[in-house]
């Protein structure tokens, strides 16, 4: 059952090859069998089986949608009524959200079954899942390596076939980078496409939820359920959601692919460059045309991102004060002590670094030099993309500088870790949609191909991903021990 894609699972449910309860029990079994990956923070077996029973009735009545009865899992950043939502932090280890995120509501209405909540870097800050209060997640392809982050539990769960498809969120690469390192398909939609209501905020002008699955075809079904205008999210975009599955097979004849010169500099690892070039050659066989594009300001994406994201994080995370919900320190002497110690005891080192950095960048006397400057650089980077995407249909390049690295390898130097997102971060600054699709292996570890499109071109990206997945089988390969 774990080898079937979402359409096959939906067909199996309808032909009564298996019921949703059986399917759910099967995946719960796999999750428990592979606990050592640490992909889940919470497994909600009981409520999952209840949802599965309800879905079986829906299916029997014959009016169920494509995701009815299909088990999925949520990144633990999406608020779930009645189940713990920790966001990977000690701060929220005791937090039971009083409402569902809009994304969760969408899946519930679709009749999907939620297996549980997936491990992640604390408050989505990190690129290795090592910043989780619940410990690191292991990469199913090499268990001494990281799965990437922040949606590390999401990527590992899909790669290990613990769930057919899951959700993630991407602020600076948190869907695409782990998708690349775990050999799965991950799509970060256009900013505003998927509601952020009930999705715990890190950097609000960059955060965006999206699907993570084995194939573009499955990601299309998931995005169909996730996307849409939401009055409860003031930055949600009021634009009709197209059908993401109908155009999957469209021809790529004449597709114009731009290769940003800055993505293929001499610093790019030669094996990585060769793997990406081979994937691009595959597209040329499918009829695509390739041209180089120049994006001169891309090299400033990392500094601009860390100013903007840290500033927004320091503001967003000021709500965790030990008063209304979340962690509270023992025996506070006074109100300042309550705030200071609750926050000091419950936030991890990386979260603290970013709060401090953001507070500094926003403090009197430094605002213009850092925050304003970063917003101007952001505009120039965004203009680079606009120019490039007026000449070509999509941009392609690597997702990560290297394949999955060893657990502990980059924890001592925050800058080394930040550079992990060198190819992904600029896309969030511009608010564009982008996807990582499996494109090969280096020494047995997966490589992701980065496909970036214009605003609201998710259907095109999925089409571009799907056609490649019709002529390659990278996305179908399973790590040893998880076949």
């Amino acid at each position: 059952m774990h080898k079937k894609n979402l359409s096959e699972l939906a067909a199996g449910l309808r032909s009564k090859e298996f019921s949703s309860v059986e399917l759910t029990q099967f995946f719960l079994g796999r999750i428990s069998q592979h606990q050592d990956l640490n992909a889940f923070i919470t497994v909600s077996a009981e409520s999952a089986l209840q949802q599965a029973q309800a879905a079986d009735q829906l299916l029997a009545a014959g009016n169920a949608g494509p995701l009815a009865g299909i088990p999925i899992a949520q990144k633990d950043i999406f608020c779930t009524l009645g189940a713990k939502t920790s966001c990977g932090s000690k701060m929220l280890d005791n937090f039971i959200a009083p409402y569902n995120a809009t994304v969760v509501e969408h899946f519930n209405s679709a009749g999907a079954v939620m297996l549980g909540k997936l491990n992640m870097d604390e408050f989505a800050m990190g690129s290795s899942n090592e910043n989780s209060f619940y410990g690191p997640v292991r990469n199913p392809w090499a268990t001494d390596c990281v799965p990437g982050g922040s949606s590390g539990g999401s990527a590992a769960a899909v790669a290990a076939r613990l769930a057919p498809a899951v959700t993630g969120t991407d602020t600076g690469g948190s869907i695409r980078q782990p998708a690349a390192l775990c050999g799965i398909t991950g799509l970060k939609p256009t900013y505003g496409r998927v509601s952020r209501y009930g999705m715990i905020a890190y950097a609000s002008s960059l955060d965006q939820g999206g699907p993570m699955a084995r194939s573009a075809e499955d990601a299309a079904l998931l995005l169909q359920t996730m996307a849409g205008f939401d009055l409860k999210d003031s930055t949600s975009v009021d634009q009709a959601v197209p059908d993401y599955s109908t155009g999957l097979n469209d021809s790529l004849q004449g597709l114009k692919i731009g290769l940003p010169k800055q993505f293929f500099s001499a610093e790019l690892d030669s094996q990585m460059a060769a793997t990406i070039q081979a994937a691009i050659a595959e597209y040329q066989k499918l009829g695509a045309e390739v041209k180089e594009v120049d994006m001169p300001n891309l090299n400033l994406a990392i500094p601009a991102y860390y100013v903007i994201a840290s500033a927004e994080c320091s503001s967003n995370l000021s709500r965790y004060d030990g008063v209304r919900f979340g962690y509270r320190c023992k025996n506070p002497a006074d109100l300042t002590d309550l705030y200071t110690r609750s926050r000091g005891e419950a936030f991890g080192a990386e979260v603290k670094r970013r709060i401090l950095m953001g507070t500094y960048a926003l403090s009197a006397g430094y605002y213009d030099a850092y925050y304003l400057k970063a917003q101007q650089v952001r505009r120039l980077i965004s203009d680079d993309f606009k120019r490039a995407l007026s000449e070509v249909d999509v941009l392609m390049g690597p997702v990560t500088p290297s394949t999955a690295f060893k657990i502990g390898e980059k924890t001592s130097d925050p800058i080394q870790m930040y550079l992990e997102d060198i190819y992904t971060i600029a896309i969030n600054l511009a608010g564009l949609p982008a996807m990582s699709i499996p494109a090969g292996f280096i020494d047995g570890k997966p490589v992701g191909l980065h496909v970036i499109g214009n605003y609201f071109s998710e259907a095109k990206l999925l089409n571009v991903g799907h056609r490649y997945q019709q002529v390659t089988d990278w996305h179908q390969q399973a790590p040893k021990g998880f076949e």
Partner: protein
Amino acid sequence: MSLTANDVKKIAHLARLGIAEQDVEHYAKDLSSVLELMTQMGRLNTAGVTPMAHPLDQMQRLREDAVTETDQRDHFQTIAPQTEAGLYLVPKVID
């Protein structure tokens, strides 16, 4: 640009964020290297560039000034660390 231990303590106070004394130097070093990275932006001339606060340059939506929320105080307070008679309790602020 580098930050001293004293700077870190000042910023931590602004953020009401407890930092253990023995970690202050470490944060000063880490933050200084992040600041170093950020100063790269100074090389780019951005005079006259409009700052970008929102990726789609959208304006905040307006809505009718109508009551849309119901009173859920009891529901919300079930997850609060300490409450009494519908109030959130904190250490005494005024003597």
